[in-house]
């Protein structure tokens, strides 16, 4: 591809499942090239068939190894599997070491598996800004199961639940007690809990803690709701991988049967809209901020101004309309409809 291949042409090739075209489109989505916007719009319209599985958990909990084993299991069930593995970018240089692929060497050279590493590039929440564009591209490229592996997250990065049809939270033994398990945040988003490294003797304690945590919530649940399960998995000796694949399929089938899948699609669309708008706003804002930043930071540092008034001035520059005007415009727009 020495000449610059137009993105519209790449869409045609990607739709035929050509891997180089799929890969290049993902790169262009990451770059946010204006040239590829119409192509990505076409991709978005065509996508929506694949089952998107989100895998999240703390750093070192064994997500990548689990993803590799899960993908191998799904391959045995005749799924075409794409994996998007997100790793952090350096807050200092912006660079990254994308090391998830190294845990997935067993999958190498299987044409039914595609692995793409992505750096967060400053995005928070566990994914990169273009992760969901990549999901659509892979969907149109013919992959029926797409696994998003988030960066290693803490307690509060829960965006993956708003981006996937089935969310798997991986917990590793030895990191906390039963109070840790009833805290709000990451543990709440799981459709399926996985306890990794369950060849270790302390893993059963965590399985019990998580199960107890789930029973505490039973009283306030609608009986029709999905009840998350806890599965002990060992990538070391292979325990639980088959069970996990079956549970993921059961969750998908149950969601489709009850209409929860549609609710989830709506939530994903709404989240996508919000995140995209946020990105546009931030880009626009940073353009205004960058030239003014050094001078304003200096006045703040000398305590000549306060952060609120300085920031307010910046925002007014980036978004000339005041909040009141924006609200008026929104009301007028709603009335017209």
């Amino acid at each position: 591809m020495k000449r610059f291949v137009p993105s519209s042409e790449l869409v045609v090739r990607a739709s035929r499942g050509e891997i180089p075209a799929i890969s290049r489109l993902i790169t262009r989505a990451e770059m946010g090239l204006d040239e590829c916007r119409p192509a990505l719009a076409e991709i978005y319209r065509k996508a929506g068939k694949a089952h998107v599985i989100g895998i999240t958990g703390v750093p070192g909990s064994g997500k990548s190894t689990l993803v590799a084993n899960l993908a191998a299991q799904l391959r045995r069930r005749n799924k075409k599997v794409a994996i998007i593995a997100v790793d952090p970018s350096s807050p200092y240089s912006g660079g990254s070491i994308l090391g998830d692929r190294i845990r997935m060497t067993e999958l190498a050279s299987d044409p039914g598996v595609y692995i793409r590493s992505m750096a967060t590039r400053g995005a928070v929440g566990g994914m990169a800004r273009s992760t969901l564009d990549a999901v659509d591209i892979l969907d149109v490229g013919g992959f029926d199961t797409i696994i998003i592996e988030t960066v290693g997250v803490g307690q509060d990065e829960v965006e993956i639940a708003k981006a996937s049809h089935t969310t798997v939270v991986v917990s590793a033994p030895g990191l906390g007690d039963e109070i840790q398990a009833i805290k709000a945040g990451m543990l709440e988003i799981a459709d399926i809990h996985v306890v990794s490294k369950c060849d270790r003797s302390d893993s059963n304690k965590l399985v019990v803690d998580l199960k107890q945590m789930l029973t505490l919530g039973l009283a306030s649940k609608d009986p029709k709701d999905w009840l998350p399960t806890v599965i002990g998995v060992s990538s070391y000796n292979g325990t639980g991988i088959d069970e996990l694949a079956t549970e993921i399929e059961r969750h998908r089938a149950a969601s489709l049967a009850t209409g929860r899948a549609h609710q989830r699609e709506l939530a994903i669309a709404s989240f996508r809209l919000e995140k995209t708008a946020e990105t546009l706003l931030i880009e626009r804002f940073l353009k205004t901020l960058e030239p003014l930043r050094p001078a304003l930071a200096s006045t703040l540092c000398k305590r000549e101004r306060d952060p609120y008034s300085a920031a307010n001035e910046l925002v007014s520059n980036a978004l000339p309309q005041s909040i009141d005007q924006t609200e008026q415009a929104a009301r007028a727009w709603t009335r017209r409809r």
Partner: protein
Amino acid sequence: MTQPIRVLLAKVGLDGHDRGVRVVARALRDAGMDVIYSGLHRTPEEVVDAAVQEDVDILGVSLLSGVQMTVFPKIFKLLDQKGVDDLIVVAGGVMPDEDVVELKKMGVREVLLQDVPPKTIVETLTRLVDERGAR
């Protein structure tokens, strides 16, 4: 937003020494590049598949085992079969001067031997991507 340069660093064959390639990985990361490391003992097929899936700007193959004249022809053949013609391939490690000449004829853009400082590696890769232009 400008795109960080994407690099796949690969170790091919029965070569168990990756201290050097990890030093390079770190230097590239600190220069703001996205670095994917293949891990040890990969085959040319695996490396080429990874380079295509990851759509890297640069494939850097590190060799300390003397098999460069076997590995690189295979890599170029596989790239050719897949119709990839805009990937920048560089070599690193320890190899004889006469091989360096042959590798460059084959299409290896730069051969960065053991005494090249990290800063020069960063500058070289940046220049190669600049010369290639938009893709």
